[in-house]
């Protein structure tokens, strides 16, 4: 087949609204975590069958496929499971300030939460490192109440 790079099709501009979604919020799941954060507490939901603790908790255990609603407190300290250092925007333009974004497993939980780690040279961060949540002075009961994480 011929490939003619000089031939041009006509471009048509359009926009596409993708902003309307429904997501069930029934007082469990993320809301348990958010409400707990007002008291500077990490709350998850434990499966009575396999013992997994989800933070935030879904309304059912994804492994056992049973409804779960047993709220448990976890530590606000945890372990860095993986991380990256944000150094550029999506176009590849370097950022002035590098930032460590980490996946953190709170002690007592089985799931990975996300946050930023400060107070350490980004190149010194290690998988397996212990970190603790640094809370806002005045918490509001939402996922923004953890301001950052710092090494323990």
């Amino acid at each position: 087949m011929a490939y003619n790079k000089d031939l041009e099709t006509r471009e048509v501009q359009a926009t596409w609204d993708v902003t309307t979604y429904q997501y069930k919020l029934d007082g469990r799941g993320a809301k348990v975590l958010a409400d707990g954060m007002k008291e500077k507490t990490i709350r998850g939901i434990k499966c009575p069958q396999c013992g997994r603790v989800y933070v935030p908790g879904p309304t059912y255990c994804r492994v056992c496929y049973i409804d779960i609603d047993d709220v448990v407190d976890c530590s606000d300290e945890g372990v860095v499971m993986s991380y990256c250092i944000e150094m550029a925007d999506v176009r590849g333009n370097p950022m002035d300030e590098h930032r460590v974004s980490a996946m953190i497993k709170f002690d007592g939980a089985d799931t990975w939460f996300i946050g930023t780690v400060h107070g350490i040279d980004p190149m010194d961060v290690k998988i397996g490192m212990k970190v603790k949540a640094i809370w806002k002075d005045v918490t509001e009961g939402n996922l923004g109440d953890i301001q950052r994480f710092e090494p323990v």
Partner: protein
Amino acid sequence: MIMSNVAIAGVGYTPVFVSKRKDVNIAEMISESVATALENTGLTPDDIDAVTFGNMQTFEGLNMPHLWSAEHILAVDKPTIRISTGGTTGMSTLQAAYYYVASGLYDIVMAVSWEKQSEGDSQVGLAGIVMPEAMVMVQHGLDLFGGGGLSAMGGGSTGAASFQAMSYLHHSGADPEHIDKMAALERSNAALNPYAHLRKKTSVEDIQATPFIAWPLRFGHTCPTSDGATTCIVMSEEKVRKMTDGNVAWITGLGSATSDPSTANFLEGQLTDPAEQEPARIASAKAYKMAGIKDPSRELDMAEMYNGFAHQSLMWLEKLGCCKEGEAHKLLDAGALNIDGEIPTNASGGVFSTNAIGASAMNRPAECALQIMGKIEGGHKIPKKIRKAVSHGWGGMFQYVTVMVLADEPMKS
């Protein structure tokens, strides 16, 4: 269960895979690969019993592209299904064609896959995977693009992949420089492949001169966005005997498996390490068993891995049993992954050098088939005889894996 033998009898690519095909619309571009597949197999439209068709959902913002393209893909009066399984789409589309033929329902099925990324917004398509969850997290106070740690995720798939890359490096003992080295090898392979998108001989220093997006991943570790299409003709053994010269590639094993989403599943608690990739082990074990392969690290002559990012080729070699955990970077250092090495890996340049997403996971087995048939056009032809090859697809929320084993001989029943 004894399955009927099924072969890939021919492959058709678009003349090029590039950033923007401005000279054709979507259906016209797809039809180029269909016409080439017919030309390469000597078949006529009447020979095709059914069509499977795959591309990414939402990437071009189009519904029902398979029906819009009905005449261009020879689907009129024939069964036609569209398949969309994320990054694995191309191989799922080929596997569906295999199911049709292996079941005995049809003899000759055409599997068509494509993407025309220039006519859509890939970031919108990717965001559409997690948008409802992300919006709920925002409602609950998480700053998507600020200091909440999510901006790597918000920045697209490279950010998400960087967590996987870091975990892989940690557990495998490979250095970040091994990612540079794998990237340079594959880009240099791509330079030899006329159907690759980024075709420039590339050194480790060239890769290291590119900026980091999110440590440990650089701009030079990431795939391009491409326009292109690939068609495979899938045929029963009976038709291979009757209608071809016998030079085909046999699909001797296949498998697929999913785990829970192992990235960006924060609203319901992410359980799985994005570098664990247990589905790769499950799917490949199934495919090897079917293909009668007992030790993939010894029996395979080549590998084509799905690698949107350069660290993944190394990771998949381990997950698919082509070597032990933590050994892929040693094979790389020893030259075993080179085109003339023991287990040439992504001789084509991989997804990392050419990514028309819907077609990317079909190009992997297609490249294996062309190597087996000795029909590679270009300098990336592997110098040794290829008897057994493994190909792989990956995608979803870092969780879905497809595997296909190809061989120069059919399975004996």
